[in-house]
C-alpha cells in the first residue's frame, strides 16, 4: 500500500514538473518578440502575378509581435528586395516609396504594409528568373526574431513569381 502511495506521489510530481516545463516553454515562445511578412491575409508566403496585368497592386503586411511591456518605443524593421534576373524595378514592378525599407513601427502599431505595383512588361522573358523576394533582414529591437520562432524562421521572407 505504501509502495502505491510512493508511485502515485512520483507520478504527481512528474506531472507537475512536466506541466511547469510546458509553461516555461510557452513563456519563451510568446514573450519573444518576432517580426513576420506575409500576404494581406497573413497566411501565405508566396504569390504568382501575371505579366498580362498592368498596374496590378499587391499588398504585403509586416507584423511585429511584441508584448505591451516590451513595446516601449519605435521599432524599425529593415528588409531587402532580391529580384531575379528577369525582373527590373520600374519596368516590372514598383514599390510604394512610403513602404520602402526601413519600415518604422511607432509604439502601438503592429502591422505595416509593403505595397508593390506590378506592370506589364512587353519584353518579359518567361525563361529567366522572374522571382522577387522581400526578405526581412533586421530589427532595431535586438532580441526580436526575424520570422516565426523556430528553426525554419517561417514568414521571414515573401516570394513573388511573375508569370
Amino acid at each position, binding site marked *: 500500500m505504501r509502495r502505491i502511495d510512493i508511485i502515485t506521489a512520483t507520478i504527481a510530481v512528474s506531472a507537475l514538473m512536466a506541466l511547469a516545463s510546458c509553461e516555461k516553454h510557452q513563456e519563451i515562445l510568446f514573450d519573444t518578440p518576432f517580426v513576420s511578412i506575409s500576404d494581406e491575409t497573413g497566411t501565405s508566403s508566396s504569390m504568382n502575378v501575371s505579366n498580362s496585368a498592368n*498596374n496590378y*497592386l499587391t*499588398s504585403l503586411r509586416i507584423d511585429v509581435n511584441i508584448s505591451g511591456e516590451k513595446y516601449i518605443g519605435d521599432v524599425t524593421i529593415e528588409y531587402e528586395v532580391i529580384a531575379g534576373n528577369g525582373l527590373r524595378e520600374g519596368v516590372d514592378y*514598383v514599390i*510604394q*516609396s*512610403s513602404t520602402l525599407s526601413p519600415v*518604422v513601427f*511607432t*509604439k*502601438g*502599431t503592429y502591422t505595416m*504594409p509593403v*505595397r508593390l*505595383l506590378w506592370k506589364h512588361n512587353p519584353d518579359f522573358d518567361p525563361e529567366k528568373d522572374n522571382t522577387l523576394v522581400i526578405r526581412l533582414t533586421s530589427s532595431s529591437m535586438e532580441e526580436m526574431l526575424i520570422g516565426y520562432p523556430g528553426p525554419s524562421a517561417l514568414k521571414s521572407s515573401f516570394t513573388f513569381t511573375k508569370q
Partner: protein
Amino acid sequence: MKRLVSLISVAALLVCCTVFTACDPSKKADNEVAIRSITLTSELNPGISKDITGTISTVDKTMSFALPVSLSDHNLIPSFTVSDNDYITQDDNVIISGESKILVETGKTITVSDDISGLSVTYTIKVIDNDEKAELASVRFEAADNELLDEDIVPEQISEEMLVRVPSQAFLQTLTISVSAGEGDVVKVNGTEPQDGKLSVDTAFPIDITVTDEVAGVTSKYVLKVGKILGYVCTKLGEYSKPSATMSGNHSLAINPVDKLPYVVFDAVDDHTTKKRLTVVKWDGSSFATVGEDSFNDTTATASVPNIAINKEGTPYVLYKGGEVSNFFSVRKLESGKWNRLGESTSSVKVGSMMIDPVLGIDSKGNPFHFYAGNDKTQSASYKNAVMSSYDGSSWKESTIPEMPLYGSGSTSTSGAFYGNRVAESGSDCYVLLHQNMFGFHIMKLNDDNSLSPVVMNYIPEGESYALPGNADICADDEGQLYVLEGSHAAGKMQIYKVNPSDKTVAAYGSPIAVSIGSSGSISEDVVFAVNGSDRTIVLIKGADGLANYSISDENGQFAEYSPLSDSAYKGDIRIEYAGDNNFYASMMAYDAESKHYWIELYKIGLETDIIPGE
C-alpha cells in the same frame, strides 16, 4: 547704544555681503533674461501620460501648454532651463526646476528674472485643451492644386477606409492631397508631414494617413484609395438567328427580375409553315438558349406584335395578336417548360391595329394585363376606345377607362381613337402611359384592384395642339419619379418629361432629342430609352436610316454625343431595358438587305470594370 551699534554692524555686514556678491567675478551679466525651455514631464506629474513641452512666445510673452482635458489638477511640476543667472517665480514664489509646483492655468503668469542685471520678463500662461484624440479633420484633392481635376474631390466621410473617385485623366496619376487634423495633432501622409497640409502622392497606391496626438500618445490610421469615376461602355453580347426559319423585324425584350438576364420574344416563319410563330430565347450569360417550347403558338392565324413581360417571381408571359384566332390577342404563360395559353382570347371583341404596339404589363398580384382598342362598330363602348383587359387567375376581365375622352368626343370625328400604351414599374407601383388621337398624353396609376387612378390627364406639351405618340415611352427611377418620352410635332424634336406622381407635375427634363417629322406628320426615327433607377442615367437609342446609335445622359438628363450601337443595319424593332446593377440591355433586329436575312443582336451597356488600387 550697544544695541544700535549691533544693528548698524549687521546692516553694514549685509551691505558688504551684497556688494561682494554683486561684484562676484564668477557671475557676469549676460543682459538676457529668458526661459530656454519648459516641460511638464510625465515622470514628475503622474496625471500626464506623456511629456508636455510648453511653447514659449517671446513676442507675445506667452507660454502655452496643451493639457489633456481629463487632467483635473493643474498644479504641476515644471522642468525648465533659463539663461544665466535667471530664476523663475510665480506669485512671488521662487520655482525650482523639477521640484516646485506652478499653477498651469490660463491667465496665470510666470516671471523670469536675472539677478545680475535686474531684468525680468513676465509670461502669461495659456492652456490649450487637448482632446486626447487623434482625428483627421479633412482630406481632399483640390482642383486648385491639380490641373487634372475640374472640381475638388472629397470623400463622403472621414473613416478608416476611404474611397474617392477621380476623372479618368487623373486616375493612377500623381496628385496633390490636402489634409488637416485636429488642434495639436500631427498628420502624416505616407509617412511624411505635409507642407502647409499639402503633399504630392502617387494615387496608384493606397494613401496611408496617420494622425498623432503626441500629448495623449494616440495615433489614428486612415487609408485613402483613389478610384476612377466609372463611365458606361457598350459591349456586344451575341447574335441569334433561328435555324431553318425566316425571322422578321418584330421582337420584344424583357429583363427577368430574378436572374437579371434578358429574354427576347420574336416571330419567325419556320421552313415547314407559312405563318409566323413565336419563340422566346434567353441570354444565359454566355449564349442564347430557347425558353420553353420552340414556335409555341398555333398557326390558324399568323402571330404578330409579340410582347414579353416577366413577373417578380420570374415567370414570363407573352402577348401576341393572332396565332390561335385572327384579330384577337392571346397571352401565354411559361409553366413547367410549356407555354400555356391563359384562358381564351383576352377580349370579347375583335381588336384593331394601334399606332403604338401593344405591351403587356404585370399587376400587383403578378398577373398580366394589357390595353386594346376594339374594332367592332357594333360595340361602341370599346370601338376605337381604350379597354383594359386583365387576367384574374382564371379568366380575362375587361374594363373601359371612364377618365379618358371617348372616341369622337374631340374636335374631329376620329379624335380620341386609342393609340396604345406603355407601362412603367416603380417599386411596387405600376403606371401606364396612354395616348389618343388629338389629345394630350395621360398617365394613370394601376391600383391593387386593377382600377386606374389619374396622375396626369391630357397633358399637351407646350406649343403643341396635342401629344405626338410616335416612340412614346415611360420609365421610372427608384425614387418614384416618372420619365416620359414624347414627340413634339411643332418643334421637330422629342423630349423627356419628368413627372412627379405625388404632386402631379410635369416638366421638360434634360436636353431635347433632335428628330425629323415625316410627311405623314409622324417621327421618322425610332427612339427608345431606359433609365437607371438609382443614378438616373438615361440611355437613349435612336435609329435612323437603318443605323442605330446610342447616347448616355449625365445625372441631369443632358445627352452626350451619339455612338454607333452596331456595325450592322437594323430593320424593325430596337429595344432597351434597365436590368439593375447599372446594366442596360439593348436589342435590335439586324438586317442584311442583300440576303433579306434578320437576326437578333444583343448589347449590354453598363459601367466599365472598376479598378481600385489595393482591392
